[in-house]
């Protein structure tokens, strides 16, 4: 990644600042610096590749993950592995086993890039979930320009909402005996299952054990659920069908684009597909072995298959609906790649563009691979960065497109490579464009600034934040400071709402100036004036491709109101109707001294929108999970604890 600094999507600071140099012991002595990366071997996609002769050489890969170290450069990674982000705890209650934690600092493992990939070695499984998990975290931190934080644990203490800091996401590699894996917000954990293959299909042999925790795609997918939940906790609520679908689709987008960090596989696929990225099957599907072990030929979800983009069966189910989003993004990706490699193919064919029969020249394959991987890494960065530009709740695919376009526009002024055009075109073909836009163009899709871009409350709040952009604190400190700043912004805003034109300000931020407080049981609490929360305040330290810093503050201001599912039965089941705004703030726009912070965009979900309320009410009446499950189980209660667990139907399993 480091050598790509200055490329189109720009480089960002490393997640953790390099530790300060140890004290100089003797003048002139060379220091041995802590390594930046730890190299670990993994299954590149999943163990399925190893079973076929033609792909066996591609089955494993060595990846680089952050070398977790203290200020002196000494490793802080503990057996488990337990680091500062993740803790792998390998207990398997269904098998009444516990597998001893791997110690990646064992000198023998340090010298051999960790354990050799093996399905039969539980400690390798621990190594793999840690390695792929850390790699996914790095992709997020690079794109977002800040440390990743997990969603706090939400509990109640005598009616008070408690948000307990979660230092590490826990990973259970062998938690379930089933064809499933999920992120559990209630446990702040990823649970992976294992199961015997149902049929002999592809590389899968009936009866042999298949592990979700050995699929790089599944690990990246579940990690993404957890990372997205850390940024947007309200995306757990299915306020419209596209919200859970976005969670699923976004997780697949991240998993898909991670394929393109495995250059050997990309090269082999590009050679086999003769440069046509749209025919590279290994690259365009997720969880191949998992799919085949379930008894179907090919990947669990294949994004080269047009039916994935237009599912015939159950198109509104979260995974199927989410797949339509992924399909659009992957279409845009293949379009951009084709454009980018077109000149290479022409150069290699004397201008005709017609490749000769036989194998492609290895140098051409190498160059095609490099272009493809670069495109993938840039698109992934845009896709992840866009989540900062998303509304605080109730997201739709159209809004995600607007976030993508705005995020890219903020980063790269001219669209020389046609990324934005390709994205818009793909979303149009998939019929996922936002509604109620009169024209479809980059200009009309980009989010708008509010009327008052440089309000006084913003200037004084940002001054009080006192952000030192040069320093990246540890995660607990980041969490603590972010909370202090949230309180500061809340105070400034509350004062501004109380002043003249306060109601107009509230309206501009999507808030209801007359909305009071509610307790955790949906009951109004008397005696509160206008109640709102600054439920997130994130900073993003980014650099544009031209080298200029592009620091940003993302503030989420939100309200909630208890609403009955059935208006005729006000004492019946209730849901939270949420609204507010995501504000993208430039703390120091160019050309202004002293700094005059400016709201560049306001992404509003208005509290007083009756249309949205009706839509959410309709969504609340649709049972969670499949019809059969909802017939016999209280799926509200089940989904309340494990919103990501209901992956399939009773009959889908076998």
């Amino acid at each position, binding site marked *: 990644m480091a050598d790509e600094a200055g490329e189109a999507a720009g480089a960002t600071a490393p997640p953790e600042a390099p530790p300060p140099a140890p004290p100089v012991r003797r003048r002139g002595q060379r220091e041995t610096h802590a390594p930046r990366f730890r190299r670990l071997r993994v299954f590149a996609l999943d163990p399925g590749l190893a079973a076929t002769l033609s792909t066996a050489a591609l089955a494993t890969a060595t990846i680089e993950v952050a070398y977790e170290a203290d200020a002196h450069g000494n490793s802080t990674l503990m057996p488990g592995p337990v680091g500062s982000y993740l803790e792998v705890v390998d207990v398997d209650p269904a098998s009444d086993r516990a597998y001893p934690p791997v110690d990646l600092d064992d000198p023998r493992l340090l010298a051999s890039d960790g354990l050799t990939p093996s399905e039969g070695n539980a400690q390798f499984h621990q190594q793999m979930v840690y390695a792929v998990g850390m790699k996914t975290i790095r992709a997020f931190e690079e794109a977002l320009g800040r440390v990743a934080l997990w969603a706090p644990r939400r509990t109640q203490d005598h009616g008070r909402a408690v948000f307990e800091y979660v*230092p590490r996401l826990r990973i259970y590699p062998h938690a379930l005996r089933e064809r499933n894996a999920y992120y559990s917000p209630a446990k702040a954990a990823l649970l992976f299952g294992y199961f015997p293959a149902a049929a002999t299909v592809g590389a899968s042999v009936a009866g042999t054990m298949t592990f979700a925790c050995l699929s790089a795609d599944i690990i990246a997918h579940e990690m993404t659920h957890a990372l997205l939940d850390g940024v947007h906790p309200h995306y757990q609520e299915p306020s419209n069908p596209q919200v859970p679908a976005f969670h699923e689709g976004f997780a697949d987008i991240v998993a898909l684009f991670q394929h393109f960090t495995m250059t050997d596989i990309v090269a082999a696929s590009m050679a086999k597909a003769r440069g046509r990225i749209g025919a590279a099957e290994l690259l365009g599907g997720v969880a191949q072995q998992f799919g085949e072990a379930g008894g179907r030929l090919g990947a669990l979800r294949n994004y080269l298959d047009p039916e994935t983009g237009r599912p015939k069966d159950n198109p509104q189910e979260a995974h199927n609906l989410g797949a339509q989003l992924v399909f659009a993004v992957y279409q845009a990706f293949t379009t951009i790649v084709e454009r980018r490699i077109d000149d290479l193919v022409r150069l290699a064919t004397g201008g005709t563009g017609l490749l000769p029969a036989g194998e492609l020249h290895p140098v051409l394959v190498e160059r095609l691979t490099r272009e493809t991987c670069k495109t993938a890494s840039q698109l992934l960065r845009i896709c992840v960065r866009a989540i900062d530009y998303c509304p605080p709740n109730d997201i739709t695919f159209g809004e995600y497109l607007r976030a993508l376009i705005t995020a890219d526009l903020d980063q790269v002024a001219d669209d020389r490579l046609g990324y934005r055009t390709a994205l818009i075109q793909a979303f149009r073909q998939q019929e996922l464009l936002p509604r109620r836009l009169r024209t479809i163009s980059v200009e009309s899709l980009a989010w708008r600034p509010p009327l008052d871009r440089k309000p006084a409350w913003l200037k004084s709040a940002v001054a009080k934040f006192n952000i030192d952009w040069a320093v990246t604190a540890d995660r607990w400190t980041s969490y603590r400071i972010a909370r202090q700043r949230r309180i500061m912004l809340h105070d400034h805003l509350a004062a501004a709402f109380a002043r003249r034109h306060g109601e107009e300000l509230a309206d501009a931020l999507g808030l209801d100036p007359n909305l009071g407080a509610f307790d955790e049981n949906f009951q109004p609490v008397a005696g509160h004036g206008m109640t709102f929360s600054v439920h997130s305040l994130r900073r993003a330290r980014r650099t544009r491709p031209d080298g200029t810093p592009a620091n940003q503050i993302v503030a989420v201001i939100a309200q909630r109101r208890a609403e009955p599912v059935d208006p005729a039965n006000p004492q019946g089941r209730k849901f939270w109707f949420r609204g507010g705004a995501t504000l993208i703030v430039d703390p120091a726009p160019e050309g202004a001294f002293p700094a005059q912070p400016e709201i560049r965009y306001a992404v509003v979900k208005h509290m007083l929108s009756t249309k949205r309320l009706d839509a959410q009410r309709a969504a609340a009446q649709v049972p969670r999970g499949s019809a*059969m499950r909802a017939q016999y189980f209280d799926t509200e209660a089940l989904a309340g604890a494990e919103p990501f667990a209901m992956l399939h139907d009773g009959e889908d399993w076998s």
Partner: protein
Amino acid sequence: MSKVRVRAYCHGLGDCNLIEVGHPTGGASFWMLIDCGIHSSAKGGKERLDKVVADIAAQTRRLDVIVATHEHWDHTSGFSTADFSSFAVGEVWLAWTEKPGDEMAEELDRFKGDALTALTAANERLQALAATTPAAAALANGVAALRGFEFGLTGEKSRAAREAVVALGKGNVRYLEPGAVVPLPKGLGVTAFVLGPPRDRKALRLRDSANTYGIANSLNASFALAAGTLDTDDDPGAPFDETEGEPLSAGPARRRHADFLRDRYSGDAVDLPVVKAGDPDPPQPDQQWRRIDGDWLGVSADLAMQLDSRTNNTSLVLALDLGRSEEVLLFAADAQVGNWGSWDAVKFADGTTTTADLLARTVFYKVGHHGSSNATAMTGGLEAMTHPALKAFIPTDQTMAEAVGWGAIPAPGLLARLTAKAEVVRSDQVGDALFVDYSFG
């Protein structure tokens, strides 16, 4: 021409239908009883069913045919709990899926047996966990209520009820295959056509290979491991061989491993951030909320639904063609998609009748599975029942369904469509009446 009367009993969530085919020239009527059962969650179910059987006895001492459509308590409990000894029984009809010695039927029986064993053990554990979280309670309730299709109140199995009804046949037992055409005795002009269950591994979700291994076996292996009756090396569901890892419940023998589990799983959490005044809520040392002791039991919900829908799909589906009146009575038991979807391809032994023709002539439809949404196919099912005089009877109990936490029984969407197409009677909306009578022919 024969007059046909259907007495549909309204005793709760369960099926019991008595059919009297009158003799055209004044001879003895022909009596057919299709199912006699009530779900074990129905309060006072046994007593209500006793009343039903007494009512049957008051009309006839002879049952020419008893049909037990499938092995579910809400269709067969009466054969186990009520007194049928005073009836003279001609024949007993069951689906081929209940036939001893039939390879596929025995495979199904094995699955049902394994699944029941697993669900019984899972139920016990889930009930113990139910108090811990609302989700655990929801899981426990759902599994328990689904088990109610398999067991009576005091643990009697629906298998026992099946054996009881077979015994009533005293050797005169027919196991019917799809496509079979059974004319009722001469002169009545009534013919029974068998539409399901399909002889199709796929539709019944039987596995293609002996090597494969279902949820039931996996759960049973886990329970056996916990009970100490199975070794890891002999556990086909185990992820690794015995050399990997150490026992969890007994605690690892290796000191470092035991310390790791204490610090990271079972004891208080270690190396938490140092907290100063004014800091946000810090993590608590208590990390019990992150344990996964029971999460693997979540799959028992899938198994309970598998067992339920596979058993429902073994439903014996009968279409009674009344002959000269060209009317058809359709008894679909609890057939689900796998069963309904197979009817179109059925070739009837008479060589002329088609399913489409039977559905088009249907004037009485005993609605599948208490009106749940997945037991009446629309296209090729209800939509193909185009007779203007169609009547539909739903043996259901919405109050009981709600009490045990089931959603949508009967399903509003299906109800709306039924109401638009047919004259609908719901057994839970007839007041105190024990039955509804229909006349045809």
